[in-house]
């Protein structure tokens, strides 16, 4: 019903009429890139605004409410402010790495957005190893953090970067293991197929306890991978002032923020796709009328709704809990999350092999 393929086909035909096939491909790439960039910035702004409002309401405040309607333009104003700031590089910093780090962070996050299916047809690149690709690419992000921490030549930054290295490497494991649960259940690494496998019910409903456990583990490990409170060891405002980006001013700092918010979005989108059925509408058994009504809601709304639900949960964590200490953080991973998700994965694997799942 809601299909973007018509629009894309129209653009393709229009371009074919004017350019050679190579030109068409180039133009399409440019258009896709611009659309992607714009939508990314829009998403980051939305998340920034949402975070401020959520935090404010949880803390008995009003949040931004001066610039624009109910403060919606506040984040634009802040970005402008950051744009006008001096791009200052500390004297003792390693200039090249220092400048490269924020770029790496942003590029990595944008790369990992490629295989995520916003709707059935709105997907940049549906590769057959989508899940694997995303988890591989997102872990490059830690290189950016390490580079930022090292090149700033600041002790706080270095400590923050080292912490975040230890943290992300450990939490990658349990995040990966909980993703594998879904891969095992759906039998594919391709995002489109994973979504299709949930046509008759989302995994969170079909999968019972193992998937619930995997979902919780995924949320915790994902929050940790995002370096967000309660796992914000890399920033740890009250311990390391601002951690790995202590020395970054102006727009470079904004790029770290952008990367953080986009990462949050990507994590939530993956969570929504794997566990909550992506753009699949909510269907309950054979309630025909209800299912029809649900079908009527556009898939993009379903997708965004689920994603923002997970984003909200992550924000809820952040504005409620105190921060863990670095050794407790690793204890949590290696003593609790890892064993649990391993056992969980074995259970799921057995269930799949014995054909016990539905």
């Amino acid at each position, binding site marked *: 019903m809601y299909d973007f393929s018509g629009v894309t086909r129209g653009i393709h035909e229009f371009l074919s009429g004017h350019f050679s096939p190579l030109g068409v491909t180039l133009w399409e790439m440019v258009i896709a890139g611009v659309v992607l960039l714009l939508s990314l910035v829009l998403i980051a702004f939305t998340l920034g605004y949402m975070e401020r409002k*959520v935090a404010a*309401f*949880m*803390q*008995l*405040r*009003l949040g931004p409410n001066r610039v624009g309607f109910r403060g919606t333009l506040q984040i634009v104003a802040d970005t402008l402010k950051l744009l006008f700031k001096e791009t200052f590089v500390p004297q003792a910093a390693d200039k090249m790495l220092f400048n490269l780090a924020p770029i790496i962070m942003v590029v990595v996050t944008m790369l990992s957005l490629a295989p995520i299916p916003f709707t059935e047809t709105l997907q940049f690149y549906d590769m057959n190893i989508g899940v694997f690709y995303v988890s591989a690419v997102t872990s490059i992000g830690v290189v950016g953090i390490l580079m930022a921490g090292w090149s700033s030549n600041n002790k706080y930054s270095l400590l923050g970067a080292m912490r975040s290295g230890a943290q992300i490497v450990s939490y990658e494991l349990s995040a990966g293991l909980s993703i594998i649960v879904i891969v095992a259940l759906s039998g594919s690494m391709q995002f489109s197929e994973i979504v299709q496998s949930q046509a008759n019910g989302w995994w969170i409903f079909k999968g019972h306890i193992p998937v619930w456990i995997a979902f919780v583990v995924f949320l915790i490990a994902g929050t940790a991978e995002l370096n967000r409170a309660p796992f914000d060891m890399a920033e740890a405002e009250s311990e390391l002032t601002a951690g790995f980006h202590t020395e970054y001013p102006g727009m470079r700092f904004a790029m770290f923020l952008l990367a953080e918010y986009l990462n949050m979005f990507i994590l939530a989108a993956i969570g929504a796709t794997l566990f909550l059925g992506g753009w699949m509408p909510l269907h309950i058994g054979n309630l025909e009328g209800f299912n029809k009504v649900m079908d009527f809601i556009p898939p993009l709304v379903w997708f965004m709704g689920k994603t923002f639900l997970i984003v909200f949960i992550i924000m*809820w*964590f952040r*504005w*409620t*809990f105190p921060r863990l200490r670095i050794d407790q953080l690793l204890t949590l991973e290696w003593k*609790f999350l890892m064993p649990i998700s391993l056992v969980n994965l074995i259970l799921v694997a057995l269930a799949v092999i014995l054909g016990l799942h539905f």
Partner: protein
Amino acid sequence: MIRYLAMYFGSIIKGVKSLLKGMRLTGYYFTHHKEIITQQYPENRDNVPMGDRFRGEVVMLHNESNEHRCTGCTACEIACPNGTIKIISKWEVNAEGKKKKAIDQFVYHLGMCTFCNLCIVSCPTDAIVMAKDFEHSSYDRKTLTKILNKPGSKIETGVE
């Protein structure tokens, strides 16, 4: 072994429960916007909630006929711990032809005042009081030096 496992899972359940408790509280505040305590200054400038005795700045009371109650006794000047008040007095000839001391200028350096109230309580004639005005910021320090007695004002008759 079983006991160990029970302890292991018990600790997990206890921990998760305690975390959920906190999330319930923040979730409650997230959904109950009545609890918001933000004061929207400067929109509410006209009715900022403020105590009756708020110490904003020292002012001298004047009645309708531009008369104040300050005799120029300098009790407030002496009481002030940081030299905020300076009283410059002059000799005035009153109706009966007697020479009498009166204030020429009651100089008050707002920038030095700590709002300790010592001058107010030391004044024998209650000539000065604390006003509620609190928006004192200014780009020019000179504006913070104030003459509290209005130009042309006289001492109220009967105040000694």
